[in-house]
């Protein structure tokens, strides 16, 4: 099988599974059977992606079919574009999807069969959409799948739709990302107006030939980047991601940690040749990324909900990736995307195991869980170490590459922000580890380790995280950045410092957390209030948008339509006045006839 067929197979299997689940209600309502079907499909996709990754030709493979016909050739096409970037992403998406779907069988064992069927139908749709996004060969198709993954995110966040918080979070996620997508779609339209095509290959060719008109290109690329800001939760549109944790934890692992939120990073990487033409936009991406990383890290410090800590850390890590891209280190950013996809999925699934066992998200109600759930504790620790960037875990190498890339890119201030973030990351992650798995107080209830269907995926991800890192270490790290020698030492030092500080604060209690909060009081308060961004958006939504809509609605009903009613009421009144000459007596009418007769005679006489 050639690369195109394999890619199509990887794309088509989840689609078939989704269609079957969608149009055959008995199958969907069968619950676990639906799950098995969906898992089999994504398993097939994984297989196809792995084979594809191994047999990938050096040249990129592109297949297209016309989608929107127009006179003189199609206006838009659909197709697939397979190159190394797409293939690696394909493997990541298929792998994490497969593991998460497997894990969900255990995590959602108490759901009713129809709900489970629905869950897997959404998952199949998501897998299809995400794979389609990865394989997209043009901007339009990218946008199509971009929106579809957004839809899946919406549906899965709202999976427990009877929970008001979940419903609110789902809608919020959709709106916020959609706000970014407005920029994306305007950018696509403008780019089409500029270049006349959506096709990546055509655009890259034009960029390489310098035939792409550069006037206004910065604006276009900025608008396209806005799409990435929404999807990849960059400041200031990051507010939806923490709320999205209302969804089932496996969903958070898959969509809101490993794959969909990385789509923005993938987008920027995908069309990097175009971004290279607009260095100002790239610099902006770098600054915003670094700022997002730092901001989210400070927010992660104060969360009590284990999933929210992880959510902010996701935002923060996405900031790392974006910063790398902005600094010109596209490879490093994408590398971090891949490693982060693995260990963040691991962390979320581990958190899911904890939540599943304890029945709460609140870290202060957990403690000493390493005794009850040693397996989970180990894999969670692996994930945390990788996230903190400790040698020889995969995260060390990618974070190192990002830092080196940013330094080399000359973004000094963002580099300092990222370095600070490394310290904070280690600190807040180990805060969770110490409080949840060690600590002094045991958790309530009788937690126990998770069944194999859940622990299996955890172990696989843990082994991959560690194994990949070890293999990189062994090979001397060819992906290693070409930055100065001191950067790995600095990063490791900061991470270790963070770990030690967390140990002192939350395990030894040598440093009082309250005292820390008091010392950094303004920051602490601001972080607790999420820097008032949510309030700001809420105010804009409720006050400005709904208020303005109410005004427009009122104007329409009572002024525009009021005028219509005024005309009608006047007509009625006039009619009422004129009605009085209609006495209803035939004889009065006959007078009218007589006068008419007279008129006719006089007229015919004088004519």
């Amino acid at each position: 099988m050639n690369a195109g067929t394999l890619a199509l197979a990887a794309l088509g299997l989840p689609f078939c599974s989704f269609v079957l689940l969608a149009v055959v209600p008995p199958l969907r309502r069968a619950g676990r059977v639906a799950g098995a079907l969906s898992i089999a499909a994504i398993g097939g996709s994984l297989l196809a992606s792995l084979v594809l990754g191994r047999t990938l030709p050096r040249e990129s493979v592109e297949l297209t079919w016309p989608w929107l016909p127009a006179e003189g050739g199609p206006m838009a096409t659909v197709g697939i574009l397979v190159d190394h970037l797409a293939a690696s992403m394909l493997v990541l998406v298929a792998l994490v999807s497969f593991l998460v779907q497997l894990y969900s069988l255990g995590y959602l064992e108490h759901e009713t069969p129809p709900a489970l069927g629905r869950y897997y139908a959404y998952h199949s749709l998501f897998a299809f959409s995400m794979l389609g996004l990865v394989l997209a060969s043009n901007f339009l198709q990218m946008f199509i799948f971009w929106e579809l993954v957004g839809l899946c995110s919406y549906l899965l966040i709202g999976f427990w739709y009877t929970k008001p918080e979940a419903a609110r979070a789902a809608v919020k996620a959709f709106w916020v990302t959609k706000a970014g997508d407005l920029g994306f779609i305007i950018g696509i339209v403008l780019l089409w107006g500029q270049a006349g095509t959506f096709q990546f290959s055509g655009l890259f060719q034009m960029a390489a030939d310098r035939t792409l008109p550069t006037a206004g290109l910065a604006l276009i690329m900025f608008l396209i980047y806005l799409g990435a800001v929404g999807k990849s939760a960059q400041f200031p549109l990051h507010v939806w991601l923490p709320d999205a944790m209302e969804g089932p934890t496996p969903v958070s692992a898959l969509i809101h940690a490993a794959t969909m939120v990385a789509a923005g990073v993938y987008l920027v990487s995908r069309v990097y040749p175009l971004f290279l033409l607009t260095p100002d936009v790239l610099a902006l991406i770098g600054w915003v990324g670094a700022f997002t990383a730092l901001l989210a890290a400070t927010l992660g410090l104060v969360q009590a909900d284990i999933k929210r800590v992880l959510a902010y850390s996701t935002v923060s890590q996405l900031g790392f990736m974006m910063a790398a891209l902005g600094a010109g280190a596209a490879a490093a950013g994408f590398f971090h995307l891949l490693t982060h996809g693995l260990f963040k999925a691991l962390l979320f699934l581990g958190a899911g195991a904890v939540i599943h066992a304890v029945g709460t998200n609140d870290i202060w109600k957990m403690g000493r869980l390493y005794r009850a759930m040693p397996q989970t504790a180990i894999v969670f620790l692996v994930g945390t170490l990788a996230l903190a960037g400790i040698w020889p875990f995969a995260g060390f190498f990618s974070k190192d590459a990002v830092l080196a890339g940013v330094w080399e890119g000359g973004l000094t201030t963002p580099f300092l922000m990222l370095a600070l973030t490394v310290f904070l990351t280690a600190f807040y992650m180990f805060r969770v580890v110490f409080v949840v798995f060690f600590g002094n107080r045991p958790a309530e209830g009788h937690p126990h380790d998770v069944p194999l269907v859940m622990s299996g995926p955890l172990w696989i991800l843990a082994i991959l995280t560690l194994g990949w890192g070890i293999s990189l270490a062994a090979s001397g790290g060819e992906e290693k950045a070409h930055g100065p020698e001191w950067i790995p030492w600095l990063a490791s030092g900061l991470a270790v410092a963070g770990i030690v500080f967390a140990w002192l604060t939350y395990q030894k209690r040598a440093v009082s957390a309250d005292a820390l909060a008091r010392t950094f009081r303004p920051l602490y308060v601001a972080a607790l209030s999420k820097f008032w961004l949510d309030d700001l958006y809420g105010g804009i939504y409720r006050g400005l948008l709904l208020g303005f809509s109410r005004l427009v609605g009122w104007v329409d009903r009572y002024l525009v339509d009021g005028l219509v009613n005024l005309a009608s009421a006047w007509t009625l009144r006039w009619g009422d006045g004129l009605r009085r000459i209609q006495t209803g007596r035939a004889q009065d009418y006959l007078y009218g006839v007589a006068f008419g007769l007279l008129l006719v005679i006089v007229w015919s006489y004088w004519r």
Partner: protein
Amino acid sequence: MGWNGIPILTLITWAPFVGAMLIMFTARHHPLAVRLIGAVTTGISLVLSLAVYLAYDTEAAGFQFYEKISLVPPLGISYEVAADGISLILVLLTSIIIFSGVFASWTVQTRSQEFYALLLVLVTGVFGVFVSLDLFVFFLFYELAVLPMYLLIGIWGSSAQVRPRGIFGWAMRETGVGSKEYAAMKLTLYLLLGSAFILVGILALYMAAGGSSFSFLEMEGAAFDPVLQRWVFLLFYVGFGVLAGIWPLHTWSPDGHASAPTAVSMLHAGVLMKLGAYGIVRLGMGLLPEGTHDWVWLVGTIATINIVYGALSAMAQTDLKYVIAYSSVSHMGIVMLGAATLTEAGLNGAVFQMFAHGIMTGLFFALVGLVYEKAHSREIFKMGGFGRMMPGIATAFTLGGLSSLGLPATSGFVAEFLTFLGAWRSAHSWWLFPAVAGTFLTAVYVLRVVKQIFWGEVPAHGEFHDLPDARGPEWVALVLLMFVIVLFGMVPWIAVYPIDTATVPLLTRLGVRP
């Protein structure tokens, strides 16, 4: 004549009319027979529309399936029908909507035979407008499509709660705002006002062309005076625009749609509003190229107002049907905007949006009807948690909403995207921005409504317990419409190919293409 000697367009057009006659004369007091006759005759139209759609030769393009019967030779009036790419799609739309409409109103109890008969007569009028090439007959069909609405809303409609307020409060009180009689009267008066403009326009063109023929094809050949073109285009724009719901002549539509019974709302918002847009494109732009160029700035600008204003008004509503009705106002803005761009992409988008919005809003009104029938309420903020009780309806509503906000893989996206492309390439590229903003506003109000009605917990006050899901014949309507939405969203070329064969010659006539 026709297609292989079969007068296929005539059959499509008159099959519902025959159904109406059969219902009135044979099926009195047999409710099931009434419905079956309705389903069969509209089914015939649907099957034949599909046949026309499949048999249309996109290579040859132009008007096909031509039929002509002279009616009044001295005045040049004849029954002349044919279909091109635009009519084709709209005929298909009409047959899909009425076929599902018959199923969606399966539960109409009062005077069902009259209801179905009027509905079918109305549909004959709609089909007739889309296929007529003779402007006189076109106008007759147009009136036939508009007038039964009065009875349908006045008799089978429902009244809404509108509190008279504001500086015109006394006027609203006096006219009886909110009652179904008010809505029916308002709609009829508005549309008749519009048709008065249209009639004047048609007669002006007839006289200017020599007064010998009402045939569209012959008028197409006539070069009208630019000044005449300017004024007649305005007449057509206002006349048809009333039906297309252009701002500020749209206020009949929320009241009318909200008061109308389910199938009528479906047909009205789904198809009849398209008659207006179709008239502007076919007669206004098709016959009056210079008039079009004179006024296109106005058409497009008002269209953007429609989009944003309609969406904001929809957001402010608390009555479910009003939300959907205002969303139609907003979406018809997309149609008019696409047409006003005078680009291939935009015009294709406009026609595609006519189709897409027709299906989508048909689905919406069917669903609103079902929800109302089961919950006996249209107050959005009193409902909640219906998703658990009626998952099917919730799914269909969500899908309709997604198409409405232009989510890819639904037909709404293709239409909106084509329109955006056209808007940016048009002479007034700023039109793009309000149009895109409109999609965001749509996302806000649609998802808000979905969340409020179907998500969350059922309100505790015990009004809405154990509401049933859709069943039996109602599913036919929902599934058909959902299927069409997704099909045309995923493989849009099946519609864009024929549309393109009609829009490219139109643009050539308008002189914006070589």
